[in-house]
């Protein structure tokens, strides 16, 4: 039995539904059949009562005149137009005299004339004892024990004078064909109802179970990976199952958000670690580098210096200058006091990049919503915009498009730079803001890293995303948390 309870809802719901329908149909059918049987029996008894009363009135004078043959003709009359299938058809009529002997009967071989009725059998004996008890003129019915016969007894009496008793025998087996007819009709109707209800039930059960099964299988995937959120068209109703779908969708969303947060965190930590390392090395290099450059400069000032040495010193100086540039690039320090960002700072950028744009024949869509100064360090914001534009110009193909939008908001400043270059791969996405992680032939790969560092120091956020045919970088810088 346990396996039955473990069945899939897909089968369990229709199965239980079917069982319920069968039980209901069966019990209603049975109840109707028993009702019909009872009705039939009642009808027979009523008919027998009326027959008994009619015959007893006619039989009284006949018995009084002791006319056996006439009495026989009277009780035999109901059999003249007898049809075997009529359940109202009595099986026998027996007329008893006051001594309990058969006066005459329609089945003389079973109930012979003058036979002692009580001695015809044990059931008859008990019945015979009850007959004198019927005092009024109404009929009474009895079950003849030891047989399948119902007996309706009517006294033959006028006033206080009683001459005998009329017994009308009905065989219950006559009920059977009629009862079977009713039963088969009820069964037919039940089957008809079942043929309509069962497919509806089956369809309904599946309709209810299938979305649950989908949910269940999606939930099973959670152990290995985050499943796809359910198709909202799979279940459109707003009942508990619908709510389950919504809740599952929300749960999948939350799981994905968590996953994204986790990835973000890991990347931030990695970037922070790399940043700290880079800045640390830069500082360590920077201090002796300043000394070395001063020493080289001093050496160059010397009048007695050999021209060959000067050549070497120049070589050294250029090398040290390159190291300093790189180190400077790594050393992002926004903590310096800076002036506020003005609309002109942004407009300058447009002018600054005209030549670059012309070079690659790029189309620039420019929008700046900045109309007044806002409290953000101008140098760093300019640096961020420059870096992003440089990056976009490098990424965009010749004749491509670049879009730059700067929008001040109540909470801060939004910068968006997009280009129509190749979309970023997942791997590129993952390492985008790391130093020297460039995929480009040009540049040292520090531009985005520096941008990231600046944004981090300004407590803002930077994201890169692939559009339908553009790559967009979005920077959000808050106003309140000034460094």
């Amino acid at each position, binding site marked *: 039995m346990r396996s039955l309870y473990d069945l899939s809802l897909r089968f369990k719901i229709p199965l239980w539904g079917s069982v319920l329908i069968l039980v209901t149909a069966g019990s209603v059918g049975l109840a109707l059949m028993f009702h019909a049987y009872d009705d039939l029996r009642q009808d027979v008894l009523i008919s027998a009562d009326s027959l008994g009363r009619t015959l007893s009135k006619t039989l009284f004078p006949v018995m009084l005149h002791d006319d*056996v*043959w006439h009495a026989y003709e009277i009780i035999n009359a109901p059999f003249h137009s007898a049809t075997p299938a009529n359940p109202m058809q009595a099986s026998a009529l027996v007329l008893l005299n006051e001594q309990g002997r058969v006066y*005459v009967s329609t089945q003389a*071989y079973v109930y*012979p004339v*003058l036979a002692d009725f009580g001695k015809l059998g044990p059931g008859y004996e008990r019945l015979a004892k009850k007959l004198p008890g019927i005092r009024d003129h109404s009929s009474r019915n009895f079950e003849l024990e030891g047989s399948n016969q119902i007996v309706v007894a009517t006294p033959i009496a006028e006033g206080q004078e009683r001459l005998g008793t009329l017994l009308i025998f009905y065989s219950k087996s006559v009920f059977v064909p009629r009862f079977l007819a009713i039963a088969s009709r009820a069964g037919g109707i039940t089957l008809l109802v079942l043929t309509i209800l069962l497919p509806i039930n089956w369809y309904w059960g599946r309709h209810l179970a299938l979305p649950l099964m989908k949910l269940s299988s999606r939930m099973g995937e959670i152990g290995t990976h985050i499943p796809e959120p359910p198709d909202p068209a799979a279940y459109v109703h707003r009942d508990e199952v619908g709510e389950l779908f919504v809740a599952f969708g929300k749960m999948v969303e939350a799981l994905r958000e968590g996953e994204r947060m986790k990835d973000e965190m890991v990347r931030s930590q990695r970037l922070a670690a790399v940043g700290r390392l880079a800045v640390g090395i830069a500082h360590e290099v920077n201090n002796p580098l300043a000394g070395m450059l001063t020493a080289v400069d001093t050496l160059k000032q010397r009048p007695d210096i050999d021209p060959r040495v000067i050549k070497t010193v120049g070589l050294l100086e250029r090398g040290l200058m390159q190291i300093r540039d790189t180190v400077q690039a790594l050393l992002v320090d926004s903590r310096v006091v800076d002036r506020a960002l003005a609309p002109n700072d942004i407009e300058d950028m447009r002018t600054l990049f005209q030549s670059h744009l012309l070079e690659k024949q790029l189309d620039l869509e420019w929008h700046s919503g900045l109309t007044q100064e806002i409290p953000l360090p101008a140098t760093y914001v300019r640096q961020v915009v420059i870096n992003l534009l440089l990056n976009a110009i490098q990424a965009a193909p010749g004749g491509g498009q670049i879009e730059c939008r700067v929008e001040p908001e109540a909470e801060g400043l939004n910068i968006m730079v997009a280009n129509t270059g190749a979309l970023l791969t997942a791997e590129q996405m993952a390492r985008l803001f790391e130093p020297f992680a460039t995929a480009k032939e040009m540049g040292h790969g520090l531009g985005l890293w520096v941008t990231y560092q600046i944004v981090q120091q300004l407590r803002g956020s930077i994201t890169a995303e692939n559009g339908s045919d553009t790559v967009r970088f979005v920077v959000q810088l808050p106003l309140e948390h000034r460094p």
Partner: protein
Amino acid sequence: MIPHRVFNIFWMLAFALLMAAATPAGARDSAIRVGLTPAFLNDQYGLLDDWRAYLERKLGRRVEFVERDRYRETMDLLGLGKLDFAWVCDYPYVYLKKQKQVRLLAVPYSRGRSLYRAYLIVPARDTHTRSILQLKGKVFAYADPYSNSGYLTPRYQLHEMGEDPDKFFKRTFFTWSHRNAIEAVAAGIAQGASVDSFVWDSLAKVRPQITAHTRIVSRSPEYGFPPFVANRTVSDQDFAAMREVLLDMNHNAEGVALLRRLNLDGFKEGKPGIYQAVAEMMNAMGGR
């Protein structure tokens, strides 16, 4: 809706018919009243209608059939002059002849003979009874107290055998016709009966399923066939006319067809002597 006038005519006609029916026999000029009894198979109403129509045509008179189940009633009607003719059992004939109430009109014959017997019958299930003596203490059905074969004969037989017919059977009852007596035995209500052989043989032809439930135990000696009698009030002219019509029946196709349905070959004048045996039995049983 039927118009009122039609209704009125209907009621007038109904009234006229009622008046005609209520008028005594003597008052009507030419209706001949014929009493019929269960001496033959008298419940074939279609046949009786055809026979009456035949008689009317042949006699040129109106004929009324008066059917009574009990011989006594027909005998009383003869005595009262309400019947002109009657087809009765031989016992009533002998009885009425003795009182000079009737004279013999015609005797039916079958297979050339105007004789019949009494059959002692028992239910077909009773295979052991060979004699009426074995029916002692049983239930016995008599046809009619004025029936020869259905009453006088078995009682006479018992009397001859030294039994008291009044005490021999445990219970007896009258069925008021031979046919009913046959049915009573067939249904098992009576364990024996004595019936008219002509009725039994006729019934065996038209309703063999009834006679099949009975078995003939013994056959009595032959008696004169139940005769057609004429009331003493009937004129010689009417007597002759009626006898003529009856005796002529087997000489025309229509009459022959009716006779066949009556299970007869024809009627002949007959001699009162053939009823001598019945008269002797009647005298032996009390001279009634």
